[in-house]
């Protein structure tokens, strides 16, 4: 694969426009391998921009990016904000309290207001799975899903793929373990829908109460399997992604105790050494050190956790740039048309 060396936003935009047809980034579950590759390539180019002393390119000058986060987030919101600013976009933050957007009616009101404000790209996070699909049907701006319920977090999947590719090269034939609270994890779903199209396989591991029953009973998505025993799952694996464990899961009766969870599914140095030599460790953050991951692993030589943060900005820059390069009038298919259904593969 050849990495683009030109200034993003100028020469390549023409090429990108030919291959990039999407109006929204809602989930990667209906993306082709080529689309994922394109974003990763552009992300690599953006990393070069971020490595410069002057971390800014004029690609989105005069465009407005609205960040609409209806669920608490610092990392992802800041990452998008940095990405938009590095592309010279104007950034508007819309903060809403959780209660005012709990009902569909209120979400519709908020969306109409955002529509009237007239942003070019709407980045949204919402606690309800599917909310960005609802919004994408009703606004003229491009929509990027920054996390919807348990459903999808496509920029996380893409940044994880970029990070893994920088460490492992081509992901074809590689096996990645995703361990933890898969049931409630949009990160796990987006990792599956990004890594599998790139040729990797995904082994899920975690307590039976925190992995969907259908996925434990053979109805797993393509390229995915389940291994309850983490030691066995890690044996010979090429990488591991630990998921954040929400402490509420214990109160909900899904876990006997955090101590027991750490004992069975926490990443320790002994455990990660079962993987191939040097196999990397990822975590979407924020971490509960000592529960899903030991400090020695989180800050050890295998950890790519800090690199994920940088790659997150790069991938988000790539997507903002690609979406801004597809003006609505050049895309006859989108106006008034339904966005893709929350599809299954």
């Amino acid at each position, binding site marked *: 694969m050849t990495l683009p060396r030109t200034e993003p936003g100028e020469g390549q935009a023409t090429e990108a426009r030919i291959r990039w047809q999407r109006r929204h980034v809602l989930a990667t579950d209906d993306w082709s391998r080529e689309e994922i590759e394109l974003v990763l390539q552009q992300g690599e180019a953006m990393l070069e921009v971020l490595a410069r002393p002057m971390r800014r390119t004029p690609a989105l000058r005069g465009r407005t990016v609205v960040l609409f986060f209806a669920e608490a987030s610092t990392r992802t919101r800041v990452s998008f904000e940095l990405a938009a600013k590095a592309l010279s976009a104007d950034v508007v933050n819309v903060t809403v309290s959780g209660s005012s957007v709990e009902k569909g009616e209120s979400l519709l009101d908020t969306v109409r207001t955002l529509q009237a404000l007239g942003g070019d790209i709407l980045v949204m996070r919402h606690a309800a799975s*599917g909310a960005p699909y609802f919004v994408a049907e009703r606004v003229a701006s491009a929509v990027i899903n920054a996390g919807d*319920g348990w459903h999808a977090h496509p920029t996380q999947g893409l940044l994880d793929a970029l990070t893994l590719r920088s460490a492992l090269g081509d992901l074809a034939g590689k096996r990645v373990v995703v361990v933890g609270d898969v*049931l409630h994890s949009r990160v796990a779903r987006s990792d599956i829908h990004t890594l599998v199209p790139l040729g990797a396989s995904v082994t899920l591991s975690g307590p039976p109460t925190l992995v969907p029953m259908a996925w434990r009973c053979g109805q797993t998505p393509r390229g995915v399997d389940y291994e309850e025993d983490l030691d066995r799952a890690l044996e010979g694996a090429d990488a591991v992604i630990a998921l954040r464990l929400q402490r509420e899961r214990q109160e909900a009766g899904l876990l006997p105790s955090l101590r027991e969870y750490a004992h069975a599914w926490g990443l320790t140095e002994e455990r990660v050494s079962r993987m191939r030599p040097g196999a990397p460790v990822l975590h979407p953050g924020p971490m509960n050190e000592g529960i899903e991951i030991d400090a020695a692993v989180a800050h050890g030589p295998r950890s790519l956790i800090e690199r994920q943060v940088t790659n997150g900005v790069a991938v988000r820059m790539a997507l903002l740039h690609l979406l801004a390069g597809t003006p609505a009038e050049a895309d006859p298919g989108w106006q008034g048309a339904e966005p893709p259904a929350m599809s*299954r593969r």
Partner: protein
Amino acid sequence: MAGGGAPGDEQAMIVQGARRFDADGRERTEDVRIGDARERIDGRGLLVLPGLIDLHAHLREPGFEESETVATGARAALRGGFTTVCAMANTSPAIDSPGLIAELVARARDARAARVLPVAAITRGRKGAELADLLELAAAGAIAFSDDGDAVDDARLFRSALEYAHAARRPILEHAQDRALSGRGVMHEGAVAADLGLPGIPVAAEESAVARDVALAKMTGARLHIQHVSTAASLEIVRRAKAEGLHVTCEVTPHHLALTDEWVAGSRAFVWDPLGGGTPPA
């Protein structure tokens, strides 16, 4: 034809050549004569059915008149061939007192459309805590009791409800669902819910409730009707109860017959054609 409304003279007609379905399930093609037959209708390509009965209607009045009223619901029912509808009690306030039953009956009469049979709440305010006055409600015209929309979680209270309903010679219509198990689920728990990241409702949430309800119906001898059954095992429990001679019945909704959980993911592939011989999923 059983179940039909009472046609006045102005409706006298003869329908020729239609497919006629009788209440006993038999189908034949023959002329249907209503009243004095002054008007003739070419019924070829049409179906003639007995007046249909909807065991599970929501007329939304009082409290949600912006969705439906007794009058609009009764007229819509008649338009769709339903000459009788049973009105659920999950209104606001819930239909849990004789006065509210009387008001519902009066409004239904004024609507001059489908016959409306009131179903009263099992518990006061449908809150599942105290029994409503079931004997008085029956005397006021309630034809059955249901907290539809919510299950009666407390098995002891549900037992009492069955005992009273039995005494009042009325059935209990139960929304069978173990709510601790269904939690905040929004769809069938399975591969589709897993993919979409939506909280699922396991089939056991319905099946365990149906099993509990049937056990209590057996003990009390009451008439029990399970609402909107959606799983094969629930149906099997009802079948066994019937075979045992218990007074247990159930109903199913069109969408549970015609759609699967794939529909939520955007698949519209399945089309059920009951009169054309399509096969619904088990």
